[in-house]
């Protein structure tokens, strides 16, 4: 089997795909000429901001458009899969003409493959652009305050690091909480899980009123005293910048911001930058989990599907993982991180690898209803933080509205399996 | 052939009626002047002939063709608007050129006609100005120029010279008369100027309150006004009127017999023009009057006098007359100069 041979029937086919404007995609883009040269398959990229990527793809699939590959954020997978807009990979892995013998599906971090590419036990997509929440910290500030390392637990953040580092207009910590996906994914969920809370219980009823969930939310509320004013208007940019400017001592952010924080053009703290896994809560580490997979779109015709698969398989392959990493992407291949020197060269690797060992795929539920639910969480989550409602009132509201959405979707009537 | 004929034209503005049953025949090549008090319907009539104003009933024909329903642009008339209606964004030249251009005249003709009109109207040095940079009289001349370059069958002028000074006015008058002769076009002219009306008109149409009072040649109107209104309207200063009653075999003013002729119908009022009243020494005339005001115009003077009964009589005197306000003078009314009118205003007698 060789790529060239496998691709020979599809030379000249054009594969349409949506890319985001992020480092991982630039890395892939840089690799594409090589693929095209080998296969004669053209990759036609539409670059979209994250904000528009979902709407654009949904519209395209609804209208039976041109897209041959779906780019799937982990929270979209349920939606895409249930609408059968994407094709399970076994259609291709079972086809010897297309399946690369070296595919080695088990080399992907299982958590990542499962969360990004899998839905309800079926694998649809291969992890492509992968993130984990990490703790980025300003080593110099910490040392100055007498700490010899980053906080290991959220409890330490609250009781030791917080009070010690919040002074002179500087703050210990900043938690991006703007009212958009940031609020639900980065702020709300981040404090829910480590304290043992969750969005839903096993019956798909709201679990936000549980003692654990409430503990997490109250903790967040409490911790705001060590965060800059107006934290509810902080998006990633503001938070990363706060660390980059030396205004806060540490932040919990996506691994992807490593580049920003390491770049002297965008950061003043390159020399002091430290990276660690997110702090642990009573329930363990449970870091934020995010990322994208690529899956073959079912609306594509057979040739396009085959070509699309070949591309997905190639770009996420074990063989290309190092190139991808070096060009700025974050592959989800375990093998690449075991290569000698990689851990030293890329500071974030150890923390990342550790984060991907232990996490919850349903960090944010991944079913089709998430888009509706995240809107509810965003609204009431910020209201909570602003003190407009108590954590109980807010949780109650979110719970009621969330259940209404789920009810309408047919989970309670048994029409739908309780998958998230 | 551009005879203009109106038959029973009525015009309403909502509830108001501006024209009442106007029937009129202006022969081809004639110079007709519309006169009448402000608001009597002169502009409305002119605009109706141009087709700019739809008429409520009646019929209008130009050159024998019924144009009542014909579009204004197809009537081949040119009009000078009372409001000028110049195109503010076009220079004087372009203003004049526009009509010819849209009618596809060739450039030479256009240039020649504009040059000629500008010369006549003394606008040559203003050809490149915009209307906003012109004085009132200059604008008015541009409006005239726009009409004459078109050389239409019928010209409609709405007070075209009202903003010009006396000297220019006379020049323009002569130019328009020349134009009239040369082009042989029918011209209909609205004016408030007595001199213009009298000197230019072949026929004067006197309008009053939307109705025609009299149609006739200037001298006819002057000498034999058909109604008291016309008598008072034609001639400046206007005719003096005195209430009269039968007496002394003829008619008498407050007991003083005026003339000797008896009239079929007993007249209610006698009229005599200021220029026809004879001045005499006190007691030497028919009646004595006191001079209240004297208006000296240079070449002549007007005496505003009052009779004992309190009636006002205006008398034209010589420019050098020695008579002064406060003097008493005698007045004579030469019999041939008297006009008589019945109570309803109609002329009485010959």
């Amino acid at each position, binding site marked *: 089997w060789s790529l060239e041979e496998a691709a020979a029937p599809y030379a000249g086919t054009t594969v349409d795909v949506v890319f985001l404007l992020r480092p991982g995609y630039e890395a892939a883009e840089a690799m594409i000429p090589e693929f095209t040269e080998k296969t004669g398959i053209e990759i036609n990229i539409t670059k979209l901001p994250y904000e528009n990527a979902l*709407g654009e793809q*949904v*519209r395209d699939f*609804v209208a039976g458009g041109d897209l041959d590959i779906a780019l799937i954020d982990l929270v979209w997978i349920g*939606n895409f899969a*249930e*609408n059968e807009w994407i094709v399970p990979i076994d259609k291709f892995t079972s086809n010897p003409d297309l399946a690369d013998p070296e595919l080695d599906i088990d080399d992907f971090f299982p958590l990542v493959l499962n969360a990004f590419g899998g839905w309800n036990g079926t694998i649809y997509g291969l992890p492509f652009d992968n993130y984990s929440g990490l703790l980025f910290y300003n080593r110099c500030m910490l040392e100055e305050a007498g700490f010899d390392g980053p906080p290991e637990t959220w409890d330490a953040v609250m009781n030791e690091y917080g009070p010690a580092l919040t002074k002179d207009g500087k703050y210990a910590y900043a938690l991006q909480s*703007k*009212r*958009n996906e940031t*609020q639900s994914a980065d702020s709300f969920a981040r404090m829910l899980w480590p304290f043992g809370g969750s969005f839903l219980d096993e019956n798909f009823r709201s679990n936000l009123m549980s003692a654990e969930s409430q503990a997490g939310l109250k903790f967040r509320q409490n911790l705001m005293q060590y965060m*800059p*004013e*107006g*934290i*509810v*208007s*902080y998006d990633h940019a*503001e938070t990363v*910048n*706060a660390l980059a*400017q030396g*205004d806060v001592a540490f932040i919990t952010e996506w691994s992807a911001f490593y580049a920003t924080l390491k770049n002297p053009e965008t950061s003043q703290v390159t020399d002091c930058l430290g990276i660690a896994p997110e702090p642990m809560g009573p329930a363990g580490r449970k870091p934020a989990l995010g990322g994208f997979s690529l899956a073959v779109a079912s609306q594509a015709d057979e040739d396009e599907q085959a070509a699309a698969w070949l591309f997905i398989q190639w770009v996420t392959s074990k063989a290309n993982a190092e190139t991808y990493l070096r060009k700025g992407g974050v592959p989800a291949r375990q093998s690449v991180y075991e290569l000698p020197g990689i851990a030293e060269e890329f500071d974030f690797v150890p923390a990342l690898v550790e984060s991907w060992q232990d996490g919850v795929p349903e960090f944010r539920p991944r079913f*089709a209803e998430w*888009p*509706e639910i*995240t*809107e509810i969480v*965003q*609204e009431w989550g*910020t*209201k909570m*933080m*602003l003190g*407009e409602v108590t954590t109980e009132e807010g949780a109650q509201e979110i719970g009621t509205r969330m259940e209404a959405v789920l009810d309408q*979707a047919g989970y309670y009537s048994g029409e739908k399996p309780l998958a998230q | 052939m551009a005879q203009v004929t109106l038959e029973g034209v009525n015009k309403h503005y909502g509830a108001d009626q501006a024209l009442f049953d106007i029937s009129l025949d202006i022969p081809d090549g004639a110079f007709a002047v519309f006169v009448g008090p402000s608001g009597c319907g002169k502009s409305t009539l002119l605009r109706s002939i141009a087709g700019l104003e739809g008429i409520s009933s009646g019929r209008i024909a130009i050159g024998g063709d019924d144009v009542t329903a014909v579009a204004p642009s197809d009537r081949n008339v040119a009009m000078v608007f009372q409001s000028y209606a110049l195109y503010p964004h076009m220079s004087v030249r372009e203003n004049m050129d526009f009509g010819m251009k849209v009618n596809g005249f060739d450039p030479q003709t256009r240039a020649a006609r504009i040059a000629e009109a500008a010369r006549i109207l003394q606008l040559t040095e203003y050809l490149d100005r915009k209307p906003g940079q012109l004085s009132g009289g200059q604008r008015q001349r541009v409006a005239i120029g726009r009409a004459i370059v078109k050389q239409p069958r019928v010209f409609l002028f709405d007070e075209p010279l009202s903003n010009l000074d006396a000297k220019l006015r006379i020049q323009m008058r002569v130019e328009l008369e020349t134009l009239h002769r040369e082009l042989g076009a029918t011209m209909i002219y609205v004016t408030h100027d007595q001199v213009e009306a009298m000197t230019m008109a072949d026929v004067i149409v006197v309008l009053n309150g939307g109705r025609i009072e009299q149609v006739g040649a200037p001298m006819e109107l002057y000498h034999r006004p058909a109604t008291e209104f016309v008598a008072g309207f034609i001639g400046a200063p206007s005719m003096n009127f005195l209430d009269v009653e039968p007496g002394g075999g003829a008619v008498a003013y407050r007991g003083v017999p005026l003339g000797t002729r008896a009239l079929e119908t007993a007249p209610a009022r006698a009229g005599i023009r200021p220029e026809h009243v004879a001045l005499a020494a006190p007691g030497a005339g028919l009646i004595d009057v006191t001079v209240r005001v004297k208006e000296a115009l240079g070449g002549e003077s007007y005496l505003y006098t009052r009779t004992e009964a309190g009636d006002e009589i205006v008398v034209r005197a010589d420019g050098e007359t020695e008579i002064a306000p406060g003097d008493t003078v005698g007045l004579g009314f030469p019999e041939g100069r008297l006009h008589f009118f019945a109570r309803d205003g109609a002329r009485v007698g010959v």
Partner: protein
Amino acid sequence: MSSRVPKRTLFSFIGPSILALALVGIGPLIYAVWTSLHFFNLTKLRQVEFIGLDNYAHVLTDPIFWDAMGRTFLLLGIALPLQIAFGLGIALLLHQPGIGFLKTLTRLALVLPMATTYAVVGLLGQVMFNIKYGVVNQLLGFVGVDPINWIGDPANAFYAVVFWDVWQWTPFVALVLLAGLTTVPPEIEEAARLETRSWWKVLRYVQLPFLLPGLVAVLILRTADTLKLFDMVFTMTRGGPGNATEFISILIQRVGFRAFDQGLASAQAVILLVITIVLSQLYIRVFYKEVR
């Protein structure tokens, strides 16, 4: 002041516009009305069904919708008078004789706010109103005002939106009114200037009647546009914090494109359209009847 013309002439003037708008405008609108009568969720297209006026009933009884509506009208009620007041002032100032160069410059500068992409204005808002690195707080600091949490505080965020709306659309009002002022014959203004020096009286009695058409235009267009206001708020606050800046269009977008419930969103939009039309008719009845 107007004339009857043959149908052919009339149609040659007006037909192309009618055709263009009918072709481009009506189809999608009908489609939207159609969806509003259905359960129509983009991600659940298999479940599309006719549900009559359910969506409408849902919208009309939904407090969130009315909250957003109320907020939108509050914005309108604050921003529009400011825009009209400032816009009128600017238009009058530019209409006055005076320093020609400075006026030309100002006229050009007026275009700047409008010309700035609305979405970018929101981002600019984030930069300028940021509590930390925002220049607004810095400037306020110069005059001794403590840093204000513009975007993070619900009350302030609303006013930040008001500020940008006023900044961006006052020039629009000013230009429309300036065009209106050019329709006042100069000698009429002169006649009025002989009577009074008070610019207010000249405005009120002489210029206003000429401005009314423009003012009504501004009222209607600004109302419609405020009800449609989206880009700037979306990029600046995204309706937050809390729902302090969740205006009606943000809500509709959320329902239609985030939650993908196009049926509900269409119903909301149709109701919005009806409200706009009713309001416009009201403006016309109240202010425009004399002119028209």
